[in-house]
């Protein structure tokens, strides 16, 4: 199998790279031979040969640099997503899928337009929060941390519902975007390590069978501790 980690050196702000390590491990433990391609600006990735694509979060400036390069993949990405293959985009990387990104100075940048949402950034307040998110395809919630400066409007195909933390915009109880097996969330960092059940779900989608998951003892224990801590916090509020 082939994993593509795109913009690995440009969009990797909160330890996001570890999602790729986790996916490689679960696929290998499940008996697959895995090839990992780490590509960046100016490279020419062939999405057709990929089984999993990952892009992580970056600074606002870096996202713009990535976006300029990412546009060349518009058609290839649409085909990839239409074919039902899996791509995960964490942090502000998934913002590139929408119509436009407007920065804090009012300048607008066209996104890939695969989804119908708009992004508006500001530079006054960093929007951060520990989060608990629910969704219908997982039996347990997703935990993690959101770290952003933007609001998403007009996203109708969302990924999570907000139990605790920040949604796509102020007051919005929905978070992220989903299109087939393209998953976009503002949760940053190693979300697939913090949420072993989410990793299993994506791996099962990629493999078409149940992945090997007996090895995840500490992952599961770590998840339980975080869920307990966050739930305690939520109940105290």
């Amino acid at each position, binding site marked *: 199998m082939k994993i593509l980690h795109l913009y690995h050196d440009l969009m990797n702000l909160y330890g996001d*790279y570890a999602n790729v390590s986790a996916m490689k491990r679960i696929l290998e433990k499940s008996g697959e031979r895995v090839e990992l391609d780490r590509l960046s600006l100016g490279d020419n990735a062939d999405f057709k040969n990929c089984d999993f694509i990952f892009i992580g979060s970056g600074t606002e400036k870096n996202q713009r640099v990535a976006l300029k390069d990412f546009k060349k993949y518009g058609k290839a990405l649409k085909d990839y997503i239409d074919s039902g293959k899996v791509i995960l985009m964490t942090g502000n990387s998934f913002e590139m899928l929408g119509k436009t990104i407007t920065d804090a100075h009012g300048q607008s940048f066209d996104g890939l337009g695969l989804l119908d949402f708009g992004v508006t950034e500001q530079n006054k307040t960093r929007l951060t929060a520990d989060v608990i998110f629910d969704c219908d395809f997982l039996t347990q919630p997703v935990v993690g941390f959101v770290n952003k*400066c933007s609001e998403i409007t007009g996203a109708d195909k969302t990924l999570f519902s907000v139990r605790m933390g920040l949604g796509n915009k102020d007051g919005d109880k929905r978070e992220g975007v989903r299109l087939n097996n393209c998953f976009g969330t503002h949760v940053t960092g190693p979300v697939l390590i913090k949420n072993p059940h989410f990793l299993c779900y994506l791996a099962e989608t990629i493999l078409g069978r149940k992945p090997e998951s007996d090895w995840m003892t*500490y992952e599961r224990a770590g998840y339980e501790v975080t869920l307990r801590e966050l739930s305690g916090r939520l109940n105290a509020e």
Partner: protein
Amino acid sequence: MKKFFTILICKLLRFAGKLIGKGSSKPGQVALKLCPDILSRVQLPKYIIAVTGSNGKTSTVEMIAHILTQNGKSVAWNKEGSNQIEGVTTLVLDSSTLGGKVKSDILLIESDERFARYTFKYIKPTHYVITNLYRDQLTRNGHPEWVYEALLDSITDGTQLILNADDPLVSSFAEGRKDVVWFGADKLSSDTPTLESVYNDGAYCPVCKAPMTYSTHHYNHIGHYRCTACGYHRHDTQYTITSVDLDKGEMTIDGKHTITLALKSLYNIYNILSAYTVASIVGVDGAKIAADMNNYVLKNGRVITFTLGSRKGTLLTSKHENSISYDQSLRVASAYKQGCDVLIIVDAVSRKYFTSDVSWLYDIDFDMLNNKNVHQIVLAGKYVNDLAVRFSYTDIPNDRIKLFEDIGEAADHLNSDRKEYIYAITCFSDKGKLLAKVKGE
């Protein structure tokens, strides 16, 4: 009259606060309420030296104060490191006469990166040191470029910038400015030709975002860099570490002043260099500064030696949510040739605010501990499972790692007849839990 009363009240609150052991931000907070522009009504000294940056602020400020005081200058400074506007207000008013004149020759301010723009609206530094900008407390700070933008607002004309030339993002504060003094390190024997870090914050030019190349790395993305497109590059330095020998514990500044290091870390040499630079600018002779820094042991309690039963150890206070701080401590432990055990504790991510985020563990280069100098690794605290998972992504053999959720049990485990030195690496938020179990020296 308003000024007089505000200063008086601040002084009284400070005096009372000291008696009952309270922190130094409350008096300033009250003063700012009584008279919001009080800072602009005070007569400030000739030298107002500000220090900010992700890492090393408190240590650098302490060293500057030490050198200047040793050389007959009177210095008002925020000893307790309360570095937001309230703490700075307390410092200024408590150091003033009731008429509002700061009594010291020098006002020395440690400032929080995100709040500098508010503090320096009223108190314009004459000299402004920026040590570095790293991934630090990103759950609050966003990211280094976000902090850069906030700091940019705090710099005004008429301030001399004193910048770390080896940090590409910090150096870009000089773009479009003239009055800049540079400090940094020549190529050192401890340098590496390639990056040794899990991530690369020097991959792209901070000015034009084209790829950068490095001729040498001092540590992480700190080194000698050049942009492949716009030509942005490391500046030549006026104050320079010309050589360092971490095994021997020596550094040399400007090729002539050799200083013996109480703490053999690259961090420490940068802190000493920035203190050297400031003291030189204020007019202290280089040889005198070197003498004052010789074997200087920081008093801020960040490095503490201890005994645990028959064993000796050092606590290297590192910052959770700050991978470079951890990398530095790991480097110290992994260089200990006589052999050491390493204890790492992650129990409360922060003492000041709540978060359960441990993403930052993935930015730390724990593989540095995969080395013959490091024998056993003990992981402890509430987030021990997350530490265990993080270590499973290193090449360190499993049988060298012990896990304890309870910090007391981890300390009991280490209280054995093993001969190895102990390096304990953890944060302010968690160090007390260890110190309760050991004997300080």
